[in-house]
């Protein structure tokens, strides 16, 4: 198992957000956390990413933090950098030379269908395009586990479907395990596994 959570419980100020949740994902598999707003999807992703310790329960990851990529719901692109610079950022912080990082980033942008937008600033891109740049940035570092929070949350249904398809296919191609949080059951249907989280 590339990541496995057993009996994870998270409480905030006496309020239980996650209650005894179990999740397990193998290498190369895709999965979806489904639930309404406030059901604890984001919290679980943060716990799985190692960004938030659970109140109780255990999380086991086969990979180190450098092999885990977390994409928050908001695209979080640096507004002053172009799509190419944003997509290469993950590699640059790891010390990859600028030219090499941009070459890899350009490939990923091509993979997510943004060849024509490499020099565009985030504000010149649509929400869907921004989300794809964020995913390309996460995938550029070749993570073994990608955790994406509501990648379609701010997109219309059609654009959302395109983004998810691109994401899933790219992950499969790269052998990256993928776990997304979504409130859309239709989106979740395309994944290998799905876990329903109830509203707290």
């Amino acid at each position, binding site marked *: 198992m590339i990541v496995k959570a057993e009996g994870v419980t998270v409480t905030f100020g006496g309020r239980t957000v996650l209650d005894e949740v179990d999740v397990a994902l193998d290498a190369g598999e895709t999965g979806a956390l489904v639930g309404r707003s406030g059901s604890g999807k984001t919290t679980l992703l943060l716990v799985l990413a190692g960004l938030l310790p659970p109140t109780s329960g255990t999380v086991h990851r086969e990979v180190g933090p450098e092999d885990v990529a977390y994409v928050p719901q908001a695209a*979080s*692109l640096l*507004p002053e950098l172009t799509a190419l610079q944003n997509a290469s950022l993950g590699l640059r*912080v790891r*010390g990859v030379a*600028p030219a090499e990082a941009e070459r890899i980033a350009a490939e990923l942008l091509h993979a997510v269908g943004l060849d024509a937008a490499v020099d565009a*600033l985030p504000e010149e891109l649509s929400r869907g395009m921004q989300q794809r740049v964020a995913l390309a940035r996460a995938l550029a570092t070749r993570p073994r586990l990608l955790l994406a929070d509501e990648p379609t949350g701010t997109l219309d249904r059609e654009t959302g479907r395109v983004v998810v398809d691109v994401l899933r296919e790219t992950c499969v191609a790269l052998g990256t395990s993928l776990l997304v949080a979504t409130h859309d059951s239709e989106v979740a249907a395309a994944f290998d596994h799905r876990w329903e989280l109830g509203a707290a």
Partner: protein
Amino acid sequence: MSLRYVLNAMLRRPVETLAAAVAVAVTVALLASLGSFVERTGGRLTVTAAARVPVDWQVQLTPNGDLAATTHALSAVPGLQGLREVDYLRVPGLVSTGPAGTRTTGAAFVVSIPQDYATFAPGEIRALLGPGTGVSLQQQTAANLAAGPGSSVRVLGSNRSVTVRSVVDLRQADSFFQVVGAPVGSGAAAPPDNVLLVPPAELKALAGTAPVVRQLHVRLDHRQLPHDPAAAADLVAQRVNHLVVAVSGGALVGDNLAVALSAAREDAVYARLLVLLLGIPGLVLAGVVAALVVSMRNERQRRDLGLLRLRGATPGRQGLLVGAVALVDGLLGAAIGAAAAIPVSRLALDGKSPSTGWLLVGGGAGLLLALLVELGPLARLLRGGAPTVAEQVTTSTKARTPLPLRLGLDVVLLGGSLVTLWLTSRNGYQVVVVPEGVPVASVDYGPLLAPALAWPGGALLVWRLTALALGRLPSTPATDPHGRLRDLRRAVLRHRRRLVARGAMALALAVGITLSAAVFTATYDRQARVDVALTVGSDVAVTMPPDSTTGLSPGIAKVPGAQAVEQVSHRLAYVGPDLQDLYGIDPKTIGRAAPLQNAFTPGSSVTAVMRALASTPDGVLLSQETLHDYQLHKGDPVRLRLQDASNQYRTVTFHVVGVVTEFATAPRDSFIVANRGFVAQQTGRSEVQTLLVRTSSPAAVAARITPPPGATVADTSSGSAAVTSASGLAAGSLTGLSRLLLGFGLVLATASTALVLASSATARRPALTALSLLGASARQGAGFLWTESRAMVVAGVVGGAALSALLSHELLKVLTGIFDPAPEHAAIPWSFVAGTIGAVVVAALLTTGWLARSTSRVDPSRLRD
């Protein structure tokens, strides 16, 4: 709900509440302290001006005046402290006979003063020889008659003789012998050369049937005067008018007090102008800092309002709730500010607390400020004009060039400032005009436009130049082996150049305001010291009366601590019929002890003039007025009459080598400077009447000098030296205002730095979180903050220094009337400048370091938003 909301806002976020209150408090304390300074300066100037007047009114009976009726009318004047009758008799001359023969003076005044006059009007008469009471000769008259205590003097016209008991100096001879009732603007009459003071009974015997001018010298209680010199002058003038009406033309009043207060009005106006030009920018800066602090909670406020909306609160209700929080912040700020103003004022303003009125004004302003800065953003939030977090994250920060810069307002304002300065300074303007006899001081606000335009113009120019420089940063390095991301940091900086430039502008304003105030006050303090040193003569001066035949030995001033001693012979010389002071100096060495400035010798440097005098043994420097009145030019011979060793006046021919307007110990009107050796050689008298001593510890050196009988020792540290210096403002100095402005300036410059950087970094938080999620190290994330901080601080400090240089120059030009003499160049307080820049840099380092640390960790709660 309201109370709970306010309590929650205060108690759950105590740091935010306290920060907002403290920011408001700084403004309150500054305003209350500045107001206090203005009020206190007015009061101090009134007290100082009044204290210089030994006799407030000289009430002169007209030929049909009645002494009893006038005395009765005077007794009804509020605050009357006392009055003495002083009568003046004009006689054809005085005669003395001694070993040197018989000497006769020209027309003279015999004046009767009561026995206790010296106690009644201290400062009017100074005893030089003898007890200072009884029959006394004025110093120059004694010299003319070669008489002293014990000499017999015959009064021509009465054929009676009196025996002299004392020789005195009439220190306020101008007012003592004024022409009472002379029309305004007719100018002061020169005091008589020959004066004999006698007891009242003696005058009756001397006068016989000759006409006597009768005066009542009046002293008033100065504590009853209003603080403001103009109001005090008005009140005194009204009382004089009332008196004149009460005696029905039976008396005329010489109002010495109103004249002194009138002169103080100009200084009071200058003090207000200083607060206006130096204090108002500080207040504006304090307001901006308060707005910045409050704006840092706008994001949370936006979320709170969202929750309130969900709970069904109407916009009015929301406004009420936020307004209540603002009110609490304002009240808290007002209370803290008022409490802080008390020790601050005591510390800065000689231990005095601010008045209740100014504390209330400060508190009210603080309350208003809190409401404005907190409700202003709220209005924007309620209108939906404020960006959401998501919008902030993805919206480009490449702000457009702001409208003022697109319109070229920086160039227009600066150009306007320089043109205004040129137009107003080319013709020797005066900002404050106080016509004699007119109760209202007139202020020419035109020249003030120069610094007023330079503030915003200079600040906008810093914005423009910073943005321009950052936009031209070189692009990218080919490699980045250490993952420092320099190319990306530069790209971000280039992109955010206008925002960074805006921050730099705020810093430049803060630094500029603080440093220009520091330069101005340092220049002022230096000139005030020169002013006092001019009055005293040097750091320490030992003086004998002019033409005294007893000289001073330079050895008496060569005490431990004395760095240089210069000898000056102080003589009296006739230029035509005018008697003027003549100072015999050694022009090659006089600069070692006497203050010398180019302003003393118009048209040439003082060094060149001294060199010319040294190379011309019979050279003489004359006042502009003397040159004009006698149509003299450089190189012309001028014949002066000086007393020789036998006390006879003899004519000596000098040659004009230059013009002099001011000189150590010299009076403000006409005087003469010549070579001491030549004067001694021509008159056969080498006595030195003045010793000028240069030292770094005036009081200690003055205390070590033992003056011979008749000599006085003065030093620049003594209060009397300051009080009698020419400028009223110099007398009190700007120490209080300096301390206030520099203290608050330092606090505001430091706070501005921290707040501008914090505000900028807060907006960068989402981007930095994204970097952390990508695995960026703390150092890599912090690199973006450090790059921006460095650019902002360097541009802000450099821009601020340039701005302060421009503003200091303009302030010194515009307020040149305050200085007497005018400064040749600005005094730069390097230690304060270094301290301010150091404080700004340290504040930037600490703030950026703290922000870098706090943003290096991923905050899950922000991701859950």
